[in-house]
């Protein structure tokens, strides 16, 4: 409203400059009456003081005042003649008269700046208020009565354009008349009654407008965009979808609605009605009522839409106690809601406020700020609740989702919210964002604890991939889908204390390690997140190392390490994000470690067997000692059978690794066996002796080797049958 002040004063100036321009209306020039003069003179004293009270009088006056200014004197005459005709025409005439009358007070200001003593007229019964005011009031009262009578109440949206505008004009006049009479500071009983009457009609009209305003706000708002627009883009404003900032499709499909629908659920037509009513209410001095109605209606609408999205309110205390899956669902809803708010709802809401209160920018700013402040704080509280609820590693992803949503929202606040409100809420949101970031860090670091605390003493059967490896790698793979966010979170929200915490080794530890690995070029670039990721990998390694010792069979523990190592490397290679963080060097290092385990296994299992096939000791003075040879065959057979029996129960589920292992075993064992057979088989007597000692043909060996690592307990005896 403040904004009006300069305009108004300008119009006063204007008026002063042209006090008595010749008449431009159709009404015949009147004979100035004494009464009119009296009244005019009468007014000047109060003029200055009342400027403030008159703020409501706006341009409407200014436009028409040139026409009206000089005609205030003739009303008494024109009126009686025409009032009898048709009530509408009569009202029209009367309205013009009222307009002139309402403006008339300004004239003396120009003419006779306070030179006549006001008190002189006190005794006159009604020198100042022309008779037509009564007539006008009768008509208006009837009009208001017609609109606003219990049963047959006229709904605003049922009114024709004309009907509503003529009503609003009438209300506008009554507001002005009311102000005018008040500022005239009339005294005496008759005046009192008149003022009382005008005030009552005015109040009734205002209450009617207020009710219609509320009705339009509450009932004309169709369901909100997001859940009634299944085909629209706004429906799923998830990642990847283009965000629409500027338009909010309407639920209905009528083309009229579609054209420039910027408002949350209202047609342009309704918005323009709302605007007109709001303007009239504010002009009539019912600003508070108007704002209250607006505020409450919109808050309810907003709560409503949040509820429909599925946002449920929880106290922070409850967030601690609630089941995770229920909370997870709610987090999802809040994220959806927050995204919708920042992309669509807030800007629509602002547009609505700006459109309804377009004549009063400061009002629209205040009311919008007030509305969204409550909503944003509600969101932030929920985020705080989540960020301090109990730790479980699974929470990380939802926490990161929330973090991203909030992070993306903060920069938009400047554009969405009025300045003061934006800076206040940004401060709040930034704090909450840090809390979420810190929570995410601590959740991620919690993985360390999961790994450390996995101290089971039962080895996994067959040396297969340990569940801890699977869990950790799947978790990391999923986490690394948030890699950029995690990098940011670790960069921005790692607490300084962490740097000297004894519980977490830091960058330099890795650097030392890295240097020793000839990785110094990489170590400079390591981000806090990758350091943490490395740390997790190292912990996992260390834990697996310990677990491998649970196997009594050294070969099996090598298989275990190979299995797990292979699994880890495959997982890392399978995810671009982790691969980027871990780097090629790391993978290469890993692969060479795997080769080492392979060698260990080979040596452990097969070198003893190959010992049986050694030619050494089988050449005594050019002769092959038969008993020794028999012993060799016997132990080879027994040993191979034993290996087959045990190792076919072992598990290598990675097909490539499995075949690599089999190939490498075959490559060592079969040629050696073949040459051993070739060299010594004829030493044994053909027949029973050969049958007894040579149980395997080289091809048999290959078949048996291909049965290793299948995880099937398969005894050779059974197979042979």
């Amino acid at each position, binding site marked *: 409203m403040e904004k009006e002040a300069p305009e108004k004063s300008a119009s006063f100036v204007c008026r002063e400059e042209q006090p008595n321009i010749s008449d431009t209306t159709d009404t015949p020039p009147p004979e100035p009456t004494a009464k009119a003069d009296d009244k005019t003179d009468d007014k000047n004293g109060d003029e200055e003081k009342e400027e403030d009270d008159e703020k409501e009088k706006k341009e409407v006056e200014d436009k028409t005042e040139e026409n009206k200014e000089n005609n205030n004197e003739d009303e008494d005459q024109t009126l009686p003649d025409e009032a009898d005709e048709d009530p509408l025409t009569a009202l029209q005439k009367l309205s013009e008269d009222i307009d002139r009358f309402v403006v008339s007070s300004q004239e003396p200001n120009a003419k006779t700046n306070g030179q006549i003593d006001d008190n002189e007229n006190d005794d006159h019964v009604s020198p100042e208020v022309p008779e037509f005011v009564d007539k006008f009031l009768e008509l208006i009262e009837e009009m208001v009565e017609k609109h606003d009578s219990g049963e047959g109440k006229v709904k605003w949206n049922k009114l024709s354009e004309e009907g509503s505008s003529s009503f609003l004009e009438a209300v506008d006049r009554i507001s002005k008349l009311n102000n005018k009479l008040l500022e005239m500071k009339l005294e005496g009983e008759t005046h009192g009654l008149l003022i009382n009457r005008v005030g009552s009609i005015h109040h009734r009209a205002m209450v009617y407008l207020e009710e219609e305003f509320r009705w339009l706000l509450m009932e004309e708002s169709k369901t909100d965009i997001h859940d009634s627009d299944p085909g629209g883009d706004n429906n799923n404003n998830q990642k990847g979808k283009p965000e629409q900032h500027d338009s909010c499709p309407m639920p209905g499909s009528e083309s009229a609605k579609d054209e420039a629908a910027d408002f949350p659920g209202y047609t342009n037509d309704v918005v323009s009605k709302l605007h007109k009513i709001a303007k009239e209410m504010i002009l009539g001095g019912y600003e508070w009522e108007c704002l209250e109605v607006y505020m409450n209606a919109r808050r309810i609408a907003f709560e409503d839409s949040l509820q429909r999205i599925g946002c449920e309110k929880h106290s922070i205390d409850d967030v*601690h106690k609630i089941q995770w899956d229920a909370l997870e669902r709610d987090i999802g809803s809040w994220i959806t809601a927050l995204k919708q708010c920042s992309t669509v709802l807030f800007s629509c809401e602002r547009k609505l406020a700006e459109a309804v209160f377009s004549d009063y920018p400061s009002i629209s700013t205040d009311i919008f700020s007030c509305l969204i402040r409550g909503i944003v704080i509600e969101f932030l509280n929920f985020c705080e609740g989540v960020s301090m609820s109990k730790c479980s590693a699974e929470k990380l992803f939802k926490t990161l989702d929330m973090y991203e949503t909030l992070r993306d929202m903060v920069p938009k606040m400047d554009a969405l919210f009025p300045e003061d409100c934006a800076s206040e809420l940004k401060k709040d949101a930034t704090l909450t964002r840090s809390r979420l970031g810190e929570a995410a860090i601590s959740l991620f670091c919690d993985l360390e604890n999961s790994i450390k605390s996995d101290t089971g003493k039962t080895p996994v059967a067959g040396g297969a991939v340990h569940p801890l490896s699977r869990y950790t790698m799947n978790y990391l793979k999923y986490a690394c889908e948030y890699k950029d966010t995690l990098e940011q979170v670790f960069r921005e929200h790692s607490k300084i204390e962490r740097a000297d915490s004894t519980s977490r080794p830091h960058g330099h530890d890795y650097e030392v390690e890295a240097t020793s690995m000839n990785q110094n070029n990489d170590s400079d670039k390591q981000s806090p997140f990758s350091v943490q990721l490395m740390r997790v990998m190292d912990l996992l390694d260390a834990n697996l190392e310990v677990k491998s010792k649970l196997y009594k069979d050294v070969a099996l523990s090598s298989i275990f390490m190979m299995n797990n190592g292979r699994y880890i490397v495959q997982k890392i290679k399978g995810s671009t994000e982790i691969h980027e963080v871990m780097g090629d060097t790391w993978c290469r290092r890993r692969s060479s470690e795997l080769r080492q385990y392979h060698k260990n296994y080979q040596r452990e299992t097969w070198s003893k067997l190959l010992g049986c096939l050694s030619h050494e000791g089988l050449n005594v003075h050019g002769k092959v000692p038969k008993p020794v040879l028999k012993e060799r065959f016997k132990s080879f057979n027994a040993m191979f059978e034993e290996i087959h029996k045990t190792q076919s129960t072992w598990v290598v589920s990675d097909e490539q690794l499995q075949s690599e292992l089999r190939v490498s075993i075959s490559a060592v064992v079969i040629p050696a066996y073949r040459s051993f057979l070739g060299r010594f088989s004829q030493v044994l007597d053909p027949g029973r002796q050969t049958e007894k000692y040579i149980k395997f043909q080289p091809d048999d060996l290959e078949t048996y080797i291909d049965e290793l690592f299948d995880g099937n307990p398969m005894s050779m005896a059974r197979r042979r049958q």
Partner: protein
Amino acid sequence: MRATDNQGSFLNRISIRRNQVVSMDGNHEQELEDIELFQKHVSDRFSDLLSPSDDTSADALLSISWLRKLLDVFLCCEAEFKAIMIMGRDASLISKPPLDRLFHELLDRNVKTLDVCNAVHHGVDAVRHFQKLAEIVVSALEQRPIGEGQVRRAKRALNSLITAMALEDKDGTGNKSTERAWSFGRRGGSGAVNKDRNPGQFRAISWNMAKGWSASKQIQAMSSNLVAPRGGETLALPVYISSTVMVFVMWALVAAIPCQERSGLASHYSVPRQLSWAQPMVGLQEKIAEEWKKKEKKGCSGLLEEIQKMEKLVQSLSEFAESFQFPAEPERLEEVANQVAELAETCKRMEEGLFPLQQQLREVFHRVVRSRAEILEALEQGGKSSTPIM
């Protein structure tokens, strides 16, 4: 910002001292001295609140500005507590029994404090709503000559105000809160029409807390396990003091500002009488509890001084409006004019004070969040090592 200044310099002092002392073994004496000082400060600060040195009515007990002072005091005490207990302390100490249990209870109280802060924040919105209705009354009844239209306008606002205050008071029997939000202009359409003339039209007043949340239960839960430590448990004392301050401040806020579900508030909590540092708090608690008991019978929407004043004026203006006949009697008018002026003054104080109060509540909220994180960190740290954090 008084609070920040205070605590800034205080923290400096403490931490400087800590750093000097920390290397020395057996700083027991230092510790005792710190705790003694803490008790004294708490006592002094609450004495100020009990009987403000500058006797202006603006700082009257439970007025908006008094509540703001109360929050300042809370922030100061909180900072001092952290300085004594967390900064530079051997973290392993607080993570061992019996302190660890006390700290975990403190953390739980922290969480409940956050909810109370939010509920009170919503409550301030409700008070702002009262203020707006009162502004209508003021603007209607300020007009001269006063006519039926304006009186009707005022009456409407007064009725809404009375209903709103009554609702805020009864509010929170659990389901009630949602009912309230929905009762205003239900979507049914016909309901809205019937309600048109009903003064309950301004019903949806502010955001609510979650269903079933109860301020008085929270306060009860915060105070139920609050037990004064026996002699000898030196370090338990600051935890106890800090918790007592926290519970008292939250309790007073809930009593002053409309809040979801507050039945039996007065009986749920009392400050132990035998402790010397708590004497001023005992005094305040008795005063407030007495007020509460008086009001609880009649029903009130909060002991906030401004609300109480508003209630009285509304009562009397409402009588005036009910019996109004045009033209008004001049004597009566004069009386009304005075009351309207008082109401306007009350509105002005709300206008000036409510927003800063809300901001301060957010500050308290964030501070408590922060502290909670620091305590957790310390506990975790202490669980792992015995190295001081700073």
